């Protein structure tokens, strides 16, 4: 079964690189991780991101964030829709990569890709509507125009779960992008091949350089640096162990960055939770603006 599933990556014994600021650097640390199939044969290597890589990615995200936030919501929606198109076009490759390590059946992989495309479409549609749900005009008791609106927090680190790696990374990435944040996506787990390939899909979509960056490596190792980085304003994570979740919460106590931790029991396939506007509450700041209204 394994040999069939891995047929399309048989010849692809290469080192996948990171995706930072629209380019594909190797980890500055020179480190890489081997990805193996069920029989223990090395399928490929992926870059093992370091603290410095994280900082470079955050810097790139910072440079790109304002322009992305100021793009029209209509424009952002089309860019997210383009990601759906790119995944659709690479459907068979995605299925093969999901199956490559021998832990996932082709039918489960096919289902995951279909759900992934649905997730892209759902968030593509949210960009120009979420402000109407989360914000609004406030009926204050006085002669003032008062409105509250969600604004992106800035740079968000999105930590993808190990399970269902494609659906998982999209589940943490898309809500952050939809509301105008620039994102550093961190992917660990036993099968980072799809994450590494996803960077290549992003490069050929219309996501501006720096808006979405992809790091592969070991999540637990990066968490202290994610937590302490003062130019990271938010973090959304899924699949964290209890210890990693605590380390993240402890680290952010000092700088008050906003953190959304999706419970390990969260069903990633459930649109009721993962396509819901309530998932972005800590990826935005509610800003309330007052102005007198008078002749």
């Amino acid at each position, binding site marked *: 079964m394994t040999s069939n599933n891995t047929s399309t990556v048989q010849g692809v014994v290469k080192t996948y690189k990171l995706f930072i600021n629209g380019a594909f650097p190797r980890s500055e640390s020179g480190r890489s991780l081997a990805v193996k199939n069920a029989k223990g044969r090395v399928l490929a290597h992926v870059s093992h991101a370091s603290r410095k890589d994280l900082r470079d990615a955050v810097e790139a995200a910072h440079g790109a964030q304002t322009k992305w936030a100021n793009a029209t919501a209509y424009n952002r929606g089309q860019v997210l829709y383009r990601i759906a198109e790119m995944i659709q076009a690479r459907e068979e490759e995605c299925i093969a990569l999901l199956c490559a390590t021998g832990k996932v059946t082709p039918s489960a992989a096919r289902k995951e890709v279909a759900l992934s495309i649905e997730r892209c479409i759902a968030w593509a549609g949210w960009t120009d509507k979420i402000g109407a*749900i*989360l914000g*609004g005009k*406030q*009926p*204050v*008791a*006085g002669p*003032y125009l*008062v409105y*509250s609106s969600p*604004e992106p927090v800035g740079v968000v680190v999105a930590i993808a779960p190990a399970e269902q790696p494609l659906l998982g990374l999209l589940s943490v990435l898309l809500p952050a992008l939809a509301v105008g944040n620039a994102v550093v996506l961190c992917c660990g787990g036993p099968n980072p091949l799809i994450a590494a390939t996803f960077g290549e899909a992003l490069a050929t979509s219309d996501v501006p350089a720096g808006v979405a960056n992809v790091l592969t490596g070991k999540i637990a190792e990066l968490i202290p640096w994610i937590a302490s980085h003062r130019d990271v*304003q938010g973090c959304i994570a899924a699949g964290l162990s*209890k210890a990693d*979740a*605590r380390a993240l*919460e*402890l680290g*952010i*106590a*000092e*700088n*008050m960055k*906003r953190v*959304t931790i*999706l*419970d390990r029991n969260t069903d990633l396939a459930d649109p*009721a*939770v993962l396509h*819901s506007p*309530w*998932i972005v*509450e*800590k990826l935005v*700041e*509610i*800003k*309330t*603006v*007052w*102005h*007198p209204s008078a002749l």
Partner: protein
Amino acid sequence: MTDIEYAPAPETVPVEIAARYGLFIDGHFVAPRSGKYRVTTNPATEQPLAEVAEANAKDVDLAVASARKALKPWMKLSASARAQFLFRIARRIQERSRELAVLETLDSGKPIKESRDDDLPLVAQHFFHHAGWCDKLAYAFPGAKLEPVGVCGQVIPWNFPLLMLAWKIAPALACGNTVVLKPAETTPLTALRLAEIFDECGLPPGVVNIITGGPEAGKALIAHDGLDKVAFTGSTEVGKAIAATLAGTGRKLTLELGGKSPHIIFADAAIDQAIEGVVSGIWFNQGEVCCAGSRLFVEERILHTFIERLKARMQTLRVGDPMDKNTDVGAINSKEQLERIQHFIKLGAAEGATQFECGGALPTKGYFCRPCLFTNVQPSHTIAREEIFGPVLSVMSFRTPEEAIQRANNTNYGLSAGVWTEKGAKALEMAARLKAGVIWLNTFNRFDPSAPFGGYRESGFGREGGRQGLRAYLKVDGR
């Protein structure tokens, strides 16, 4: 400058204050297990007002247990019944508002004019607003699975004792939670008076518990593992320690912390109104306001004339007896806070800024501080960076809107910001680019229960007020 003399106009409504207050647990005032009491004083006279119980860890246990016991029946109560309690509480606050305002002024030092016209009306309105939410929560978060958070521990500051209590208790109860609230050690009296009102309105025992005491009681409450949520308003330093304490516990947390808010005056502003805005921005409540506009940025070409006019206006501020209806600036809340403010004022001068303060005699007793402003302030000066929580304004200038934005955002805080300009598009773009949770355009220090309040960055997280504020007291899709 002509000397303005007013005859004294003291507020004369008498308020009964007991000699000693216990803790309000499970619907009764009880003696503390600690056996200890602390004296609360009137900061304007330094005279003792009452002895107030000093809760210890054992008292906190009892209060949390009482809130836990009350939770299920309170959650099961119909939403309409919950609403009726809150509406009734709002009414009783309105009816007893003069008494509460007087008590607030006696215990906190804030001018009666402000406690009567600002604090109390907002307190009643806050309960009224949230009463209406009780049966409408499903419409506030459409499509989500909602549950109350559970037992909430709430710790509030001394600058707006009753208003902060209202901001904490009203949404918590509306969403079906029960609470243990600790007022600040220097301003416990109005919270205890409100406990009487809760009882008078028939609120079931244990739904609200009020424990008094100092930092020890606060720490015991915040770290208590019987809580499902902690809400804190106070300093950023304490807020960070609380966040670390709660890391990994699964307990929810909202923090409303400090600020060093920018107040930006463009040359095209309506200057007379802007002057009034600046005065309210920094000298309202003696500057003991988390969202105070303590960094003033004036467009360079009007800097000189604006500051001269501001100084002239400062001279008309009446500093003194908070119980006098004409008083603009009352007493600083405590000796400790007065010393802290004086420390910053000394530091301002020592670091090279130029001080200007109001003239006039101060009362011989009590903790008073003249409103003052500093010019020649550099962004690196301590008084331009750190929250003073007093009537001290740091004045700086700018040449372009870009520079104003850059300097205004150059802070770890992000609670509020003010902008004065008569150009609509410029005002709106400034609002979009300032990193703060509340932006006041051509006004300052406006509050309303329907308008979410809360900060960016180290000014805390979560909002209070409005639909958005309910989020702090509900589990939405299990989070």
